[in-house]
């Protein structure tokens, strides 16, 4: 009996190791390629890189630094804007009664069902009217607005669970509603704020289509856009090593962040997707 259980655990490990290797394989190949030049790739694709082409990484960093900076700025702005607006709205939904409450809330929930492709054309026209095309704000504002429904939904359901007496006590002490939100609700809700922030960062960090449509100037390109154009722009058709090095370098920031924040990341991703 005991032996059977042992060998079952053994098989589990075998299967999981194989699955892990398969998961990592494309990225392992990317890493292997990133250390080679074209000659090495053509002659001996699978061999250990020797000499190791360190210069590929410098090149990768140099050509993507600007895109990284743009992505950081845009994602941070989207995240802050989403969190502030969603927190205020969620507070109103969970604390006040007012006419039209159900209707407004319903509109936010329904928006979750709209396919993003449907909005692209008219959103483009709106941004053109507002003069937002090819600007940073044109990247930030629509993405923040699109992220609001999910953020409000998650924050509201968390706020509703907070003990009620806390608010009443604070208000009797004469604290304004904004102070209650900032000094009581926000500190108690940090887990859900991190959830919303992580979901938000991942989606704006990965957004490719919207920048593709609105950005003309090279200096405004975000990471996904810059990477998609890299091959033609830098004439790298015959330099796959350099290309892979650039991909590798730009994957690192989030992976490193993840190393430090595994727990909130995992929790955030789960609760975000599970809430109905």
């Amino acid at each position: 009996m005991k032996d059977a259980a042992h060998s079952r655990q053994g098989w589990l490990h075998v299967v999981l190791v194989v699955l892990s290797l398969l998961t990592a394989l494309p990225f392992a190949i990317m890493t292997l390629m990133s250390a080679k030049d074209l000659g090495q790739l053509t002659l001996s694709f699978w061999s250990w890189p020797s000499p190791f082409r360190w210069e590929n990484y410098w090149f990768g960093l140099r050509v993507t630094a600007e895109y990284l900076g743009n992505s950081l700025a845009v994602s941070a702005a989207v995240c802050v804007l989403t969190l502030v607006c969603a927190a205020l709205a969620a507070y109103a939904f969970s604390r006040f009664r007012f006419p039209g409450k159900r209707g407004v809330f319903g509109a936010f929930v329904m928006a979750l069902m709209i396919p993003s492709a449907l909005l692209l054309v008219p959103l483009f026209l709106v941004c053109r009217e507002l003069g937002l095309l090819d600007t940073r704000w044109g990247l930030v504002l629509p993405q923040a607005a699109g992220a609001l429904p999910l953020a409000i939904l998650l924050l509201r359901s968390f706020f509703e669970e907070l003990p009620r007496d806390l608010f009443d006590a604070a208000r009797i002490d004469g604290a304004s509603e904004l102070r209650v939100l900032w000094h009581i609700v926000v500190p108690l809700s940090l887990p859900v704020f991190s959830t919303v922030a992580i979901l938000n960062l991942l989606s704006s960090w990965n957004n490719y289509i919207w920048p593709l449509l609105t950005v003309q100037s090279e200096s405004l390109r975000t990471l996904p856009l810059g990477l998609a154009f890299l091959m033609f722009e830098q004439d790298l058709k015959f330099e796959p090593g350099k290309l892979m090095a650039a991909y590798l370098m730009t994957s690192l920031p989030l992976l490193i962040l993840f190393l430090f924040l595994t727990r909130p990341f995992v929790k955030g991703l789960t609760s975000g997707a599970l809430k109905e």
Partner: protein
Amino acid sequence: MSRSNNNEYQPWRAAGFLLPAVAFFGVFVVLPALSALALAFFRADGLAMREWVGADNFRELASDPLFWKSIRNLLWFAVLTVPVQTLGPLLGAKLLCSLRSPRAAYWYRTLLVFPVLVPGVVTILVWQELYGATGPINLLLDAVGLGEHARAWLGDPATVVPAIVAIGLPFTGGVFLLIYLAGFLSIPASLIEAARLDGAGPLRLFLSVELPMLRTQIGVIALLSLLGVLQNFDNIQILTNGGPMNASLTPALYLFRSGFEFGQLGYASALGVVLLAVCAVLTVLVRWAGRRQA
């Protein structure tokens, strides 16, 4: 809104708190959504031309062979994607939960989930390289003597759809895995203990206890996967832009190209309205089924 009765009646305060969110949402979501609905009944190129055409766009859509081709492609994508995306992570979660060592489970989980953190565009571009004419996949085929099967995987109408789906290999990780893991953790230990005492083996336990308890998660993930197939097109846009010979064109990508490549904004919006209707019907159906089961 369970506790709304205890809440204070504060319409002006509420309006103040809601203002920023409602303003953004109104300008960048509601307004575009409504104008998409309206635009579907116009012929418009986004510049000077805008002409009321009634339901012509929808009629044209119904007789557009390219639209129907995109629907067939979509079904092909869905058939290949949804089952593996739904069941793969379930298998992964089951394996992780069967491990006796929590440390090992933690490390395997990290390894299976990490691709979520890699920018989506990087994953796509790396696979593009893997699929290249002289890429590693063809090199490998050559090396093991299957050279005659080497091909331009993304350039062949017969293989382009499976090749795009295969980017998710081995389908056991990602966010869906985390959802299933949370589901497994929420199954009461007493239930599993009781089943064990009744003599249920591992397989029996999985089929008769765990699977029924995970019904909700399975339903939600199947829906999310299906909605993803319906809506996402950025990976296809980057890899093939719908080619070769429109073999990987999906309705969402067709919408995108009609609007921004061919300048037919009205036609694109009509396509979008159809897509919205399909998404809404699917969502309602799945929720309804879920509620009936519960």
